[in-house]
């Protein structure tokens, strides 16, 4: 293809990304349930189908966790309607064993036709407030099969040839506790896909299919070249790593996730052989979820300006033995996989690559101490509140930067709710949402501090908590320290308080009961003793690190007047490295 085509490719690629942005704007503004419009727990993207495989071609930055998982959803949706796909159709799907991850992450897909063939597929994937099933909110720590996770939604047409299929739509909404929210949510997702369909059709009319296809291929090739260049810069070899999930919510601890990264020239193979067999509890990660987290880990190792598309995964081969916790068989429960063991999957990949390219790896912060509360409004409608403020945080360090803010990039693009909005939408009041000192991974670059959150529930609530990152907090890289441990307390009153060890299920709290969380900070990067003493002092002044912490974690001695005692510091650091 000649140079002009390259230019054209950039132009068409840019237009598709813009369309994905439009979809994203539509969803953000019109979805109903806070978990999704306020938290932005969704992604919009556009996929290509070439007859046998689906490929990511354009996206709008959103909740990155969703992004690559949609690839498979699109393939399965097409397979499901092989000879019955029409222009104007819109498909909804969420089946962990049919291209999905955990059930609350529902995907809406619309085929865009050109000359009687479906070519591009705009899709929205979002986390729904509820998915029916045994437990409100879709997180059931007692789940032992996927039906105890919630309603399974194999690909189903909610719009056929542009006409709303009311019975199919109502079937989904009728099995949802939050019908009053979910109806609006689905409408906005469908609206976004239909809008994208119009825009994409315009693109076809303008450039013609061959040009568009060529352009998409060029963009994918381009990204692939960039990623291959990155991988080629790593020393060839086999790099083994393992990490562990705290527990499987069924009494077993330290569930092994193993990864062998093989670098050969510009090829990368990630082999998860040796990971634990699938477990009874709801941490099993369906293949789409596993690939999604692998994609994130790989993307994080590459330059930020590479267009996000299938090209990232082209050089990467992923081996996931069936029947393991990273590729379970139906009907293993999977409810919590988008946090754990998703986080551990990304972590282990980064640990392995880190041995080859330490400066490219960093951050992994998705070991969320999930908690949600539900209750009823005065009019009897149920509300479900995911404790976003409480579990969001733990940004880890990366080469060249301390962790900062709440989440790190890569692990999510969600926005935490407004505290004031929250107090208006729910009978609950946030009493504290602030950094706590030390509760993070020290390092040449340190993780973001831990976050303490106290939510007071004004009415009676039922609360479920699913701990993670307690036995195995986020690990640091290149000698960086381990992140802070998560803690969640359920307080009924001044005396009665329960600290959640692994999980709490439907724990009742009386009015003015409290959910108290400490979200551990992220892992550090590099040796803490290499951190300039003055930066440690600044952290002390800013209350990110205590004086004691400065000495314990960084070997930095501060004099009474708060200045650095250079000599003492040198001595302690020398002693530490000596021992």
């Amino acid at each position, binding site marked *: 293809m000649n140079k002009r085509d390259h230019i054209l490719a950039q132009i068409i690629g840019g237009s598709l990304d813009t369309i994905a942005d439009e979809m994203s*704007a539509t969803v953000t503004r019109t979805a109903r349930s806070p978990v999704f419009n306020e938290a932005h727990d969704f992604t919009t993207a556009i996929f290509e189908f070439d007859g046998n495989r689906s490929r990511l071609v354009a996206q709008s930055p959103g909740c990155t966790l969703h992004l690559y998982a949609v690839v498979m959803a699109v393939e399965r949706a097409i397979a499901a309607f092989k000879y019955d796909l029409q222009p104007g159709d819109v498909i909804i799907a969420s089946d962990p064993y049919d291209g999905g991850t955990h059930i609350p992450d529902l995907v809406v897909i619309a085929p865009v036709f050109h000359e009687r063939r479906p070519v591009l597929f705009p899709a929205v994937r979002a986390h729904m407030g509820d998915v029916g099933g045994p437990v409100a909110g879709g997180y059931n720590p007692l789940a032992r099969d996927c039906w105890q996770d919630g309603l399974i939604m194999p690909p189903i047409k909610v719009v056929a040839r542009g006409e709303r299929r009311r019975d199919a739509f109502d079937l989904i909404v009728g099995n949802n506790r939050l019908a009053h929210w979910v109806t609006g949510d689905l409408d906005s997702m469908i609206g976004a896909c239909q809008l994208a369909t119009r825009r994409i059709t315009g693109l076809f009319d303008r450039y013609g299919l061959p040009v568009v296809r060529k352009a998409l291929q060029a963009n994918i090739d381009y990204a692939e070249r960039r990623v291959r260049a990155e991988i080629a810069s790593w020393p060839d070899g086999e790099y083994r790593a393992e990490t562990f999930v705290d527990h499987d919510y069924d009494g077993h601890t330290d569930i092994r996730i193993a990864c062998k990264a093989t670098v050969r020239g510009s090829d990368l193979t990630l082999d998860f052989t040796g990971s634990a067999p699938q477990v009874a509890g709801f941490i099993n990660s369906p293949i789409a979820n596993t690939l999604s987290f692998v994609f994130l880990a790989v993307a994080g190792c590459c330059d930020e300006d590479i267009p*996000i598309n299938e090209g990232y995964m082209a050089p990467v081969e992923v081996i996931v033995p069936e029947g393991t916790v990273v590729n379970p068989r139906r009907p293993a429960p999977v409810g919590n996989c988008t946090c754990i063991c998703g986080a551990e999957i990304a972590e282990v990949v980064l640990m392995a690559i880190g041995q080859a390219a330490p400066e490219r790896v960093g951050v992994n912060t998705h070991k969320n101490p999930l908690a949600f509360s539900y209750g009823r409004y005065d009019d009897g409608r149920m509300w479900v509140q995911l404790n976003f403020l409480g579990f969001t945080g733990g940004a880890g360090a990366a080469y060249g930067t301390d962790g900062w803010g709440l989440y790190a*990039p890569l692990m999510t693009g969600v*926005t935490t709710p407004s505290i004031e909005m929250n*107090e208006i939408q729910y009978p609950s009041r946030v009493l504290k949402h602030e950094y706590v000192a030390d509760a993070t991974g020290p390092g040449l670059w340190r993780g973001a501090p831990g976050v303490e959150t106290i939510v007071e529930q004004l009415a009676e609530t039922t609360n479920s908590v699913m701990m993670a990152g307690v036995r195995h907090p986020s690990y640091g890289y290149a000698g960086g320290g381990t992140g802070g441990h998560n803690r969640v307390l359920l307080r009924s009153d001044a005396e009665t308080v329960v600290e959640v060890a692994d999980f709490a299920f439907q724990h009742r709290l009386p009015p003015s009961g409290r959910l108290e969380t400490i979200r551990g900070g992220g892992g550090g990067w590099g040796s803490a003793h290499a951190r300039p003493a003055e930066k440690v002092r600044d952290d002390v002044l800013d209350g990110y690190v205590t004086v004691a912490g400065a000495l314990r974690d960084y070997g930095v001695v501060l004099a009474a007047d708060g200045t650095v005692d250079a000599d003492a510091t040198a001595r302690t650091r020398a002693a530490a490295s000596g021992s």
Partner: protein
Amino acid sequence: MTQWLVGIDVGGTFTDLVAIGPRGEIHATKVPSTRDQSEGVLAALGRLAAEIGRSVPELLADLPLIVHGTTVATNSLLEYDGAKVGLITTEGFRDEIEFRRSYKESVFDPRLKAPHAIVPRRHRIGVPERVTHTGEVLRPLDEAAVRAAIEGFIRDGIEAVAVCFLFSFVNPAHERRVAEIVKEMMPSAFLSLSCEVLPEIREFERVSTTVVNAFVGPRMHAYLSHLEERLRTQGFRGELFVIQSNGGVQSALEAGRFAANGLLSGPAGGVTAGTYLGEMAGYPNLITVDMGGTSYDIALIEGLRPAVTTESWIGRYRIALPMLDIHTIGAGGGSIAWIDAGGALQVGPASAGSNPGPACYGRGGTRPTVTDANVVLGLLNPEFFLGGEMRLDRKAAEEAIRREIAEPLGMPLIEAAVAITDIVNNNMANATRLVTTKRGHDPQQFALVAAGGAGAIHAGKQAEELGIQTVIVPGLAPVFCALGANVADLRISEARTHIGLTDTVDFEALNETFQEMEARARQRLPGADFVRNFDVRRSLDLHYVGEVHEVTVPVRSRTRRITRLNLEATINDFHAIHERLFAHKDPAQKVEILTLRLDLVGLRDKPRVVAAEFGGEDPAPALKGTRPIHFDVAATETPVYDGALLRPGNFIAGPAIVEQWGTTIVVYPGHECLIDAFGNVIVEIGQVQKAGERG
């Protein structure tokens, strides 16, 4: 109007002045901008005085008003060169400004660094206090804690104090009390209260805006008093007004107190000028683009009302104030073309600026820029830059492009230059789509106003990309913002959060709030003697229950009162707008009011610009000659006209080049242009060709 009107706009490269005389005669000048912006302002005034043969004091003495657009606030934020700020906030919430609701500019780059802390944590103090969302005091303000905090501030040499408590938009008592204590303990400190800066729900948006206001406030305040001082000593007795981000103008005093309102003081003038132009030339729907040396500003005007947003991020800080919705990307004449690690050609966002500037400036710049490409393609005349005030070095331009683009990509020089312009055009087109289609507007319903030195070179291609039919190049394109300063109205924007379902609205309370807002607006609105009449615009931020983003809907009311009837009309509009923006509506769903907005506009008399008689169609008298131009890879011998000699009514069929002072207009093949009665160049776009079939 018997006196001179003067508008002065300070830009990154030039300080522009437009003066309109008693008989509607127009003087425009450009002088280089200066570090102390008042230098440039006085230099420009000096030029004007000279041109109309008067001394500066004479001129200043009978100027009733100077309207000023300045980038002081913007630069102070972008360069993080602001005041030392201390923040007092509700205990337990001092990190919200750092949490940023977990927003990060990149979701894929783990190495993304934190933004510069304009208020480091050590200066963020939480004090015990709490009011509920209904306004009751849950926990009284701990004044001792406040005093302790302020003592710390004094010790650390804090210059500005920002105060932001939860739910202060419902009950500001605690913030006001803190203000009293600050005034008492550190009287010289600059004060920024969230209940004054942005009395709206959402703590992060509010605290960020309030802190930014404190950060840029002292600089802006100092600059404006300094400028006013200098003008006064030179005999100025009139009023100094400043252009605000909302497109209105404001007294220097208020502009200093609420400096966050001045963050778009520069580009806002261009949008205002666009509105004026649209009214004059009869185009109510416009997309104004301003392509300068480093940036490309896009704004949308519908029905002569510029689009306004409350969702801006500037300098990585969230500003939730209503601002003209100006979308800026790093694409200008100085934008550098480069080849990335994957061998793809990129243009910008890095810019060679004005120093060293593009290679062709011959000031030591070696990187190829958009301007260089335009020179190579023949679109720009090296001999006629800034009307000949500056010569361009064609060789240097060719050399830079050959060395850094053509050879690495293995393309001929011309193809490389074409590629550079294609990429920058496309970047601009996509950016323009974002402010049109993404907001539910169809670009084809709009005319494109091309301002700024480089705007008119690329506008034609933009229009093709977007399917726009008409491009307007204003006679004053190079000094468009300064023109805006002359025509901007006085404007105060007030907002109050007032939550309630539309079907259970307490109209008494609603109207009371609106009246209180109007009263405050009137007391904040200066210079009533320049105002022909007042226009009060009320609107409501509405959403379906559960939605957490709002749509601002103008209230359909002829009277001052909101009634059941006009509220219903407004809600119908809401459904319609919602559908236009988001492809669906849900009239069955309950609608909630979140925020009341009121704009008090003091309408000024617009300068009367004389409409000239249409002469003949033939532009021949203005023909300077021809030169080969590469609209694409192949060159076309193209006629070149002298804009100064073109007359209203002249008609030119593309391809052609019109060179006028400060800008070059490219009439692409298939396009046609006409000079209108006000000296604007109106370009009509022909059939859009399929991009796929080119090259």
